[in-house]
């Protein structure tokens, strides 16, 4: 549900749920054994956003903790964020409303993170599972792209 568009700046920090903060840190810890070990929190946020968006796992935040500085995101990541907001609003005008853009992607990332967390705790190999998902999705969306998968 998109609210009325107001001209607002994108917030300085994108936020995650306060109660997920520790788990975020655990998953990027060097010794965690997760596919995100040793990475920045922003990378895990972006993967969470991708999964949340793809699977429609929008989930509002109970409590907030500023964690992902907008300036820490690469240009590519910022464009992915903007595109998710435009698609969600079905209108490019949403980009004028930085607060709403942030809210949309934060909610998708919140739902997506729970999916990743369940996967890491489960019996499957997380890296292998996600890699297979990404490759399959790429082939579905861009069948003409010059990528071959030996598994096919």
């Amino acid at each position, binding site marked *: 549900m998109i609210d009325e568009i107001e001209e607002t700046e994108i917030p300085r920090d994108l936020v995650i749920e306060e109660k997920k903060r520790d788990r975020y840190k655990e998953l990027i810890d060097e010794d965690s054994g997760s596919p995100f070990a040793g*990475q920045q929190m922003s990378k895990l946020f972006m993967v969470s956003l991708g999964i949340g968006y793809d699977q429609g796992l929008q989930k509002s935040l109970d409590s907030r903790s500023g964690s992902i500085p907008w300036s820490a995101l690469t240009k590519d990541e910022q464009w992915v964020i903007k595109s998710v907001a435009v*698609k969600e609003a079905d209108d490019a005008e949403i*980009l004028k409303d930085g607060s709403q853009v942030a809210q949309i992607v934060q909610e998708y990332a919140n739902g997506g993170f729970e999916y990743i967390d369940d996967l890491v705790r489960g019996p499957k190999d997380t890296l292998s599972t996600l890699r297979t998902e*990404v490759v399959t999705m790429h082939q579905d969306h*861009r069948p003409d792209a010059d990528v*071959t998968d030996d598994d096919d």
Partner: protein
Amino acid sequence: MSRIQIHSVEVKDYRQFHGKQRIELKTDGKKNINVIEGENGSGKSNLLNAITFCLYDTEEHLEESKEEGLNVYPYGNRDKLEDLDEGEELNGYVEVRFGRDSPEYRFKRSFTTVKKGENQFSDASDDLTLQRKEGSDWDIKDDPIAHLNQILPVDVRDYYLFDGERLDTFFEEEYSENVKKGIVDVSHIDLLERSENHLKRVRDQIQDKDDFSGKEDELREELNELRDELEDLEGDKEEIVSNLEETRRLIKQKESKLEDSDDKYIRSRQEQRSKAKDRLKNLRSRKENLQNRSGDVLAEAAPIVYCYDALDFTLEQINELHEKGKLPPRIQDYFIRELLEEGECICGEPIEEDHEHELKDLLEEVEQGLDEDENLEGKSEIPRIQDVGTEKVSQLLDLRGQIREVEEEISDTETEINEIKEELKQYDTSDEDIDVDAIEDQLDDLEDREETLKDQKEDIVSDIALKQEEVDNKDEELTKELKKKEKHQDLVKKLEFLEQSIDHVNEIQQTVLGEIRSQAQEKIEEYFNQLIWKDEEYEIVLEEDYTIRVLDEFGMDKIGSLSAGEKQVLALSFMSALTSISGFEAPIVIDTPLGRISSEPRNRIAENIPDYIEGTQLTFLMTDSEYTTQVESRMKDSISNEYLLSNSGLKTEVVER
């Protein structure tokens, strides 16, 4: 030094008093009494009301009747109000002058009565004003209440300005409450009461702040238990590490035996096995690196790939805008700006005002919607990002291929190592100093043990990390509790101090009240015996529970058998005792002082009354049935001013006698 007196009361159009009327009440030396005589309804009580209205904005001696919030008995003079039309107003005032020798005080309160309808009026009173005369000048004072409190504070006014009718009922059932209120009123302990209430409020607030749970010992015990468990785990880890080192040393020892064998075949196989083991270690490390890189690439590919359709959609939107002309080439924007800045067209003609407006509107249109730079950027960036997605997926697949290759190599190397082991087990050596089969069996056991110990080490390292976290959390909990305890101890000290302060303030109050009771008892006895018409002396006892005993010469308590007149004298004595000990040397005004007393005792009281509060100005408002010839003759030597309230219909005039 003479006591303060009421010099005069001036009223203008107040109740029965028509127009401006002034009553001079200044008394002189021994002649300390004023008598204002008037029939019932002539305005006696309203003279007392005039004084309390002026000073305290209240009329306590009035039976008020209101209908729909409107007064039937308004401040304004009814005779004058009759002449007003609906909606018109009448203004009046009451002025009371006080003084000793100097300074003189002129308190004044004005009022307005609006006629709302037939027998319906609305009253409003102004604030009290005060002029103070020092020498020959009257100065306006901006704090009249503060000055009034120096003369006659609101708490004690009832013992100086009162209705004699009240004396009738003073000693009826539950009279001790009346006595207590009187004693408290004149004891000036209100400051102590406020202090006590403040101390109690602070105490309650402090008690609310105290969140100390008293779990310090429990928490300390839990923390010590956790630390013991952590220590045990550290000990276990040391033991595992030591066992692991010992196992590895034994493996090395067994392998050295094979490496140093005289049998060339055994030496070469062992050498090959050592190399394979080194290779296996490197392969496993390489696999780990590839997986880490794979994770990095996945983190870059996933957001793009999962959001392909969003990127496609956004690109479509931008292209649509472009097709609609909402996304002009950047050059157009620069061009319009340049034209506006130069103020000249490319043809050389100056840009007219109309054109300038058109250009500005066009520029605004161009700048509306998406940020132009963003649009232009998006048109090129989104396809590039999608290509990055493709490139990253390609890298992912490449890495996956490399990982699989490494996994195969790992599998081959493990097979090679196992084959060497089997070969050596079955090899029949000529070297008698070495039992290869036994060594291989031992190596099997040691390697199994090494694996088990490595697993145990990993588990215990993880257990230690978790336990350390538990210790840290418990330690933090204990630290918080200790801070609370520190705060609690501080609060306990404060609470003890407050409790002691409350007790002390209470003791002081009781001491003050005890002293006032004792003084009151003495004064009541003095006045009662002075005013009572009987020859015997009575002893008055004012008990701690504020009951009063009137003891005759035989020590019998007569309070229950006092006549109505005697009770009124006792009440008058009590009121007089309060005025005497209140510390205020204010004048006394009593309305109907002898109303319920029969003729003989009334004469006796009239005889004694001038002396009973020496030096105090007394103003009596009396009916003709009270102010009889006998009473007048007994009081005449003490009377300074005598007035008659002459009443006809709605008008009363004050006539000097």
